[in-house]
């Protein structure tokens, strides 16, 4: 290769013994070209002197390091805006998620507690009052009588219509609130159905399918905006069958 073609490489090759593949052409050229080799040696020597000269020409001020440290100490590190906003968004989502799940769990516990209490006071009322105040085998008549006594609408639930063994009704105090009561039988077993507003007992939308509780079959559900709790001495499977027939749950 001709010397002229290697002008830039000869002027920039960092040392005689370089093994950088970029300078492979120069390395092989100076093996055969004494002129270029001599020039290169001279250049490297001159540049080494220049490097030393440049290095010694700029003595570092004694106070530089301490002043740099002092200046940078007063500065708070700036994190990237993306990191900052993503951290805020992630924190927000975490708080919202935790709050939502905490609230949901708390509401679930409250409803379960309210249902348990409603079942307990319904059973207690069933045990204490076995006789109706208004005796009738007509569920519509009982509903009309209860509506007048309670001064609000009491509807005949589908469940009572399916049982076809109505005995009468009465007005009662269920916890702190007045409720309408239907007395009827399921398979010859005494049963009591309480009618109330579900929000009074914090059981809106909650359902307890027929289950055994304190020796009675109990159930809770809502129908057309009214809440019902059932206490029956009939076994759960018979109550379930009636539920299916009346399409309650």
């Amino acid at each position: 290769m001709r010397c002229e073609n290697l002008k830039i490489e000869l002027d920039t090759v960092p040392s005689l013994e370089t093994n950088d593949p970029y300078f492979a052409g120069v390395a092989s050229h100076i093996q055969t070209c004494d002129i270029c080799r001599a020039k290169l040696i001279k250049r490297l020597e001159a540049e080494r002197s220049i490097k030393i000269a440049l290095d010694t020409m700029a003595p570092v001020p004694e106070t530089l390091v301490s002043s740099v440290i002092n200046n940078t100490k007063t500065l708070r590190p700036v994190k990237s805006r993306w990191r900052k906003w993503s951290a805020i968004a992630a924190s927000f989502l975490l708080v919202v998620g935790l709050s939502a799940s905490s609230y949901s769990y708390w509401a679930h516990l409250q409803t379960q507690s309210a249902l348990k209490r409603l079942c307990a006071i319904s059973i207690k009322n069933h045990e204490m009052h076995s006789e109706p105040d208004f005796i009738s085998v007509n569920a519509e008549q009982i509903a009309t009588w209860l509506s007048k006594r309670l001064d609000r609408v009491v509807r005949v639930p589908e469940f009572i219509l399916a049982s076809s063994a109505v005995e009468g009704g009465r007005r009662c105090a269920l916890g702190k609130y007045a409720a309408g009561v239907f007395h009827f039988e399921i398979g010859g077993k005494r049963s009591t159905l309480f009618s109330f507003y579900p929000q009074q007992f914090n059981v809106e939308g909650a359902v307890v399918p027929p289950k055994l509780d304190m020796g009675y079959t109990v159930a809770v559900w809502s129908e057309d905006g009214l809440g019902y709790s059932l206490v029956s001495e009939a076994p759960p499977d018979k109550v379930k069958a009636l539920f299916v027939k009346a399409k309650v749950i």
Partner: protein
Amino acid sequence: MARFEEITIPHVEALYKMAYHLAGTRDNAEDMVQEVYLKARKSFHTLKEYKKCKSWLCSILYRHFVDEYRRRKPYVEVDINNIPDNDKPEENDWPEHFKFEDISRSLNKLDPKYRVPLVAHFLSGESYQEIAESLDIPMGTVMSRIHRAKKAMRKELASATTPPLKIVNGAKNEM
């Protein structure tokens, strides 16, 4: 904070020397180093590999210098593009004798586009590839700019009118 100091402070001196030869005066060099460290402090979280800290600081220094230069333009430039690529001896060989201040003067006359890679080559200890990465330009361009800068510097040194000093291994010997 301690981590930042631990990683970056060891490079203050090298950075100052480069800043001095880029800026041309001690005060400007000191200001530049302070600015570079403030910028580095702000963006320290972007430094992924601590072993590349010096290159990272150098790249901040180069960018800062070029920005400042564009803003102030205090230097007399040598139009390197008009230097013909011929074989005049004074452009291809370093003169036998030159003074310290002539080196500084010839460096300061270079356009920053050529001065930055040349100072980086002489003082940073970085390879051509590392300089190319710091300046975000191809390695071939770095070498070409260094070659042209050296030619301009050699020409400037050869035409220097001040009484010469011979430089032997960094020591000044009056002739």
